[in-house]
Each structure stands twice: as structure tokens, then as C-alpha cells.
């Protein structure tokens, strides 16, 4: 119990961020039109690719070969998530925009 309390104390600022981010996330998404559900899901999908930073840190401090291999795979997977996510979202949204331009 004590250790959990200590964890909360040490990370109190992080926990604040978590609480505020939860509400922020809900607030941002609540009014989205259903047209944008797919691009939004895909865009959000790219953002959680931020996990690649953790993978870079693991790999950057890897000492054993196993850690290197796993780290390498993790960085590749994370980058796939980030790059693929953003590119495909851009492609989808590009279709919406072209058409709007032509109309105006």
C-alpha cells in the first residue's frame, strides 16, 4: 500500500496530466461529425505511435543483443504505426479537400 502511495506521490504531476488529458480528449472528440469518424480514428491511431519514443529509449540503452533485436523490432513497429497512420490519414483527407476546392 505504502509503495503505491509513494508512486502516486512521486508521479503526482503525471497523474494530473492524465486526468486533464482524459477530459481534454473527451471534449475534443464529442462533437465530431460521423463523416470524420474514419479519418479521426486513423489520425488518433497515428498519435499513439508516440510509443516509438519509448522504443528509441530502450534501443538507445540496450546492452545485450536480445535487447538490441527487440528494440529494433519495437522501433520498426512504432515507426510503421506513426508514418503509416499519418500518411494514410492525409490520403483520406486529401480526397475531401480536393473536392471542396473544386466546388468553391
Amino acid at each position, binding site marked *: 500500500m505504502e509503495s503505491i502511495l509513494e508512486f502516486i506521490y512521486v508521479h503526482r504531476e503525471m497523474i494530473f496530466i492524465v486526468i486533464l488529458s482524459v477530459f481534454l480528449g473527451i471534449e475534443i472528440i464529442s462533437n465530431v461529425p460521423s463523416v470524420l469518424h474514419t479519418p479521426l480514428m486513423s489520425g488518433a491511431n497515428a498519435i499513439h505511435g508516440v510509443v516509438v519514443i*519509448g522504443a528509441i529509449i530502450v534501443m538507445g540503452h540496450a546492452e545485450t543483443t536480445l535487447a538490441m533485436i527487440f528494440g529494433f523490432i519495437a522501433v520498426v513497429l512504432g515507426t510503421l504505426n506513426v508514418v503509416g497512420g499519418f500518411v494514410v490519414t492525409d490520403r483520406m483527407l486529401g480526397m*475531401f479537400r480536393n473536392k471542396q476546392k473544386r466546388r468553391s
Partner: protein
Amino acid sequence: MDELIKVREILQFTLGGSVLEITYMIASILFIIGLKMLSHPDTARRGNIWAAVGMALAIISTIVFHQQDGEHIGNIGWILGAIALGTIIGTLIAKRVQMTAMPQLVSFFNGMGGGAAALISLMEFPHISQALITRHGLLNGQVLVILLGLMIGSVSFAGSMIAYGKLDGKIGDIRSGVLRIVNIALLVLLLGFIVYIMSLGQVEPSNVMYLVYILFAVSLIYGVSFVMPIGGADMPVVISLLNSFTGVAAAMGGFLYDNQVMLTGGILVGSAGTILTVLMCKAMNRSLTNVIIGAFGGGASGEADQDGHIKQIGVPDAAVLLNYSPRVLIIPGYGLAVAQAQMLCHELDKLLERNGVDVKYAIHPVAGRMPGHMNVLLAEADIPYDKLLESEEANQQMEDVDVAIVIGANDVVNPAAEDDPSSPIAGMPILQAYKARNIIVMKRGMGKGYAGIENNLFFDEKTNMLFGNAKESLQQVVNEIKNM
């Protein structure tokens, strides 16, 4: 490479680690702004780019400035190599994929993120701070964060891969009540296992590594069996849910490294993803627990009365009917997309407009395989935005519609949702095509829809069935109208 390291040392000396924190802050703000802009049609594309810029900033400054116990990031060559490899593969896949395959792709990329999160936890477990272990044993926040990250990441990875396979038609559904019980048991087992590992007390983390590998394996199995029984129309909900799972897994990494950008990015996606999941459930009038626990469409219900007769219509008749009706409403479904008939649909639409027919499209929120998927597909075919009606608007006008032409859609026009309380889709808001004066249904055959249930609309006396591949049928109708 050496120069990069030198530059880094100079920058580090003059600017200190605070640069890292500041770029993380900027990146977090860019994520928030990006997400906000993504939820408005006019700014969506720029929002996506801002978020991508934030991500690039965060990644670059991590490589350059990050320090752990006074040590810089090493193995830079390998890291850059891995990033390059991921970038090339990611871009190639993202550029080449068909728009119809979008749900699979989102699921696939999502799985990649989950896998990365799981691997990080796996690697970090042996490095848990010694000071914490001597004071508290394994019962400390760091262990909790690592194990949760491992579990959620692996479930997300395995689940997303199964979802990918299912949507791609590579894996079928397994629908059995047994699996439901197995799932609950597995979940309890997983959580219990985490508690067990944490209760081990003061042990060397590397000595209990085998337990962590077992947790990893069981989480993967759970991910598979979690998604396996869910099928049909519920798939998008699962993808969205797994998306928020990966967000949470990334946030666990944020706790682990005291890394604000991972935390904000992860939690934002986690909460936004959850809300998106709930919104999707609402669009189908189902509760989330219902989606997860109750397998879809497997019940004995939906055995509609089949005594009604099916009326078929030939291509020439259909062409005449369409051409001489003042108001036509096109109701596209996934079948249209599969047949790649969006362009032809637009051609038909232009042709009819020229002949004085008023043509509109009615888009059900879950038409296609993801909410909003149909809008993307029609946008690809250059169909003007203002011709697309949302469900409610379309239903209000339905009685004045002379011909409702249903192309490759099924469940979203099934009247059973309104009048058969025992139907698996009961209560789902539908497009009330049955209210139109005439209905033409283009369909490959009498097969059931994605939810696997019978559709009484096809037996309606106002309904004319035009069997065949949507693309070929449309082509024939278009040719017929041209020759008139």
C-alpha cells in the same frame, strides 16, 4: 554519425536537457491542436499535418537530447536504420492500399503500436530500479506500469491482428458460448497473475523473467480470443476500442520514462478513442458490454418469414424506372465499395441529373465497414459533398422519393431493426428505404448481410431485385440510359 554525436554534445552542453522538455511540451500541444482540427472537416488535413510535425519534433529531440542516468542514446545508426525501415514500409503500405481496405489498415497499424508497447515493457522489466526493489520488493508502481503496459499492449497487438485478418477475409468468426466463458476466465487469470508477480517481494527481476514471458503469452492468447467471437457489424467498434487500448499502453510507457509526450499522446488517444467507441455504439444502438460479451448475429432470431415473393427486375426496366422518376435516392453500402463501383455510381448520377432527375445519396453512419467509411469512398469518386444526406435528413424526405436504389447495402435498410424486437439489430437506426415509392435493390444474390440476418425489405412488394455484381449491373444500367 560521429558528427551527429559531436553536435549533440555541443547542444547538450549549451542548452541542457530543458530543450527536450520544451520540445515535448510543444509536441503535446501540437497533438491536442491536431486532434481538435481533425474533428472539423475544413481543418482536418492541416490538423493531421500538425500532429505529424509534433511527432517528428518529439522523435528527433528524443534522439538528440534524451539522457538516462547521464547517458545519451546510443546505437544511433541502428535506431535511424529502424526508423528508415519503418518509414519506407509504412509509406508504401499507406500509399498503395485501396480505400475499401481502410478498416483493416487502421487495425494493422494499431497492432504495430501495441506490439511496440509490449516489447518495451518486456525489455524494461529487468531494469527496474534496484532502490525500489530493496525498499518495496516488486510491489511498486514501476512494476505495475510495466506489467499493465505489457498486458494491454499485447492484447492490442494480437487483437488487432485478428481484426485485420477477419476484415481482410482471412480469418472467420468463431461464435460459441464457451469462448465467452474462456474470455472472462482469461481476463481474471491475467489480472491475478499481475497481482501474483507483484506480491513476490524482494526478488531479482531477471530471476522472475519467465513469469513475465508467461504473462506476455497469455495476454496474446487473450487478445486472440477476445476478438475471435466478435464479428459482423461490431468490428469497427472493436477496432476503435483496441485503438484506445494502444493509447493507454503508450501512456504506461510515459509513466515508466517520466515522459510527458508519451503520456499526453497516449492518454489523449485513450480517452478520445473510448468516446469514439461509445459514439459508434450509439450509432448502432448497442451498448459496449453488449458488443464485447454478446456475440453478434449468432442467435436463432432473424429467421424472417420467407413466404413473401421476390420480384426481379431487368436492366432495361430498371433504367426506364430511374430515368423517368423525378427523385432518386442512392443508398450505397459496402457491396458498392467491394465491387469498386463508386465511379460508375457517380456516372449514373451525372447521367440522370442531365436528364432532369434529382439524385441524392443517403449515407448511413455505419455504411461501409467503419463509421464515415462510405463518405471517404464516395469522396474518392468525386461525388459532391452536398449531395450526401445524413440518415435523419434522408428519412424525412423518403416518402417523396420515387426510387430508392440500394446498392450493396443490406443491414442498414433492414426494417427488422424497427419492427422485430428479437432481431439482433433491433433498435439500430436505419435508412427507411421501405417508405420510398419504389425500391431497387442491387445485390449479388440472396446472401445475408454482414450481420448475418434475413432482410424483409427484399420481400416487400415495392421492391425490385436486380441481381448481379454491382459494377456490372450499374454499367448495364448506365449503357441502357445512354441509349435511350
